[in-house]
């Protein structure tokens, strides 16, 4: 009897050790995943700066020169508008690649900027309602921004939505992001997630966040993210 108790005790102890080791490995993997995402962000930031300071500066020079000449002929005026469009495209691309507004002003203005930039030229009316804790960590801001960006791009490409709502609320140390559109929706059983969606799902996991996409044909799409802070 005594032996049996001892054996049970030792098995329990072994189990606890194994569990602790598993938890530690899990923790290491999660840290690794976080580092990978951080690295990807810094690569993007680098590329974005090169785009802005390189092609961006050249196009700025070109645009200014053409502007100075534009009164001389309608042809040059047309070239000036084309150069200006190219410059605006490069700036927009660079900013979406690495949104400095997120570092400069924080998540709320950054999300308002994102919606305005992506949606105002589309036929999508949008509404935002954002409440955030004052000390949201930067990596979580970036996570939520990237998820919103991917979701908005999907909505523009596929949803045919005319209305979109983005809300963020904060209760009991959990931040919740909801993006809801009134578009055509999709059948989540038959549609394979694309690279973008899989990528934000992986990313959410690295931060213990849950990502749910609730869609049905003809009933719009709701994307919900909850993340502990």
């Amino acid at each position: 009897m005594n032996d049996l108790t001892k054996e049970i005790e030792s098995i329990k102890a072994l189990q606890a050790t194994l569990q602790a080791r598993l938890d530690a490995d899990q923790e290491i993997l999660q840290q690794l995943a976080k580092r990978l995402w951080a690295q990807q962000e810094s690569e993007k930031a680098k590329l974005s700066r090169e785009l802005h300071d390189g092609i961006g500066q050249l196009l700025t020079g070109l645009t200014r020169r053409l502007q100075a000449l534009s009164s001389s002929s309608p042809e040059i005026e047309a070239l000036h508008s084309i150069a200006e469009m190219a410059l605006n495209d490069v700036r927009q691309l660079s900013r979406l690649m690495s949104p400095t507004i997120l570092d400069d002003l924080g998540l709320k203005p950054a999300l308002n900027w994102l919606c305005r930039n992506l949606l105002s030229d589309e036929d999508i009316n949008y509404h935002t309602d954002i409440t955030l804790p004052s000390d949201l960590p930067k990596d979580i801001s970036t996570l939520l921004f990237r998820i919103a960006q991917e979701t908005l791009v999907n909505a523009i490409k596929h949803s045919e939505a005319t209305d979109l709502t983005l809300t963020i609320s904060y209760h009991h140390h959990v931040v919740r992001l909801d993006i809801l559109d009134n578009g055509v929706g999709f059948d989540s059983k038959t549609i394979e997630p694309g690279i973008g969606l899989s990528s934000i799902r992986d990313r959410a996991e690295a931060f213990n966040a849950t990502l749910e996409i609730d869609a049905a044909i003809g009933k719009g799409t709701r994307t919900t993210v909850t993340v502990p802070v």
Partner: protein
Amino acid sequence: MTIRVVLADDHVLMRQGVSQMLNANPNISVVGECDDGVELIAAVLKLSPDVILMDISMPRMSGLVAIDKILSQRRDAKILVLSMHNEVEYIEAMRDAGAKGYILKESSGDSLVDAIKKVAANKTCFPDEITKPLDEQCQKHISPLSVLTRREREVFFLVAAGNTSKKIAELLDMSLKTAENHRSNIYKKLNLSSSAELIRMAGKAGLLE
């Protein structure tokens, strides 16, 4: 009287250029130059300048945090933000943080000097972007259609011309549901309840061909 300015920008060439240009003006003197927000706060406390001319994106401490810290130490500090960002979110955030003015780096030297003088005289100086939404609100009274998106306006005119949602969907190459969504949004935005009301409204506003 000379306006004493402290200037903060991490781009050295930019900062030197602005500083030289301002010092060439007999009414302005740049009394301090800083690389980042942390240096700026120290300089403001030490030099008590008349105007603080500062960038937003800076290392060590962002402009937004720096403004907050400066104003908590010197409530009457006059801050003019010098930035490359022309987005309305930036301008609003700086105004809300307590800056007295906002000027773009691409502005001419003269307009920068003007802005510094205005802010020194305790006036505010923000670009048009911030007042635009007000103008747009005024326009609502001029054209009732300004609340609609481009696509909704197309749908509006097709409804006004007597087309059914099905026909509109065909004409604009969209699904029936999308056409109906547009239609119901138009009704909601213009406070209408039927196509008859829409046509009546279009007629009153002189929008029928």
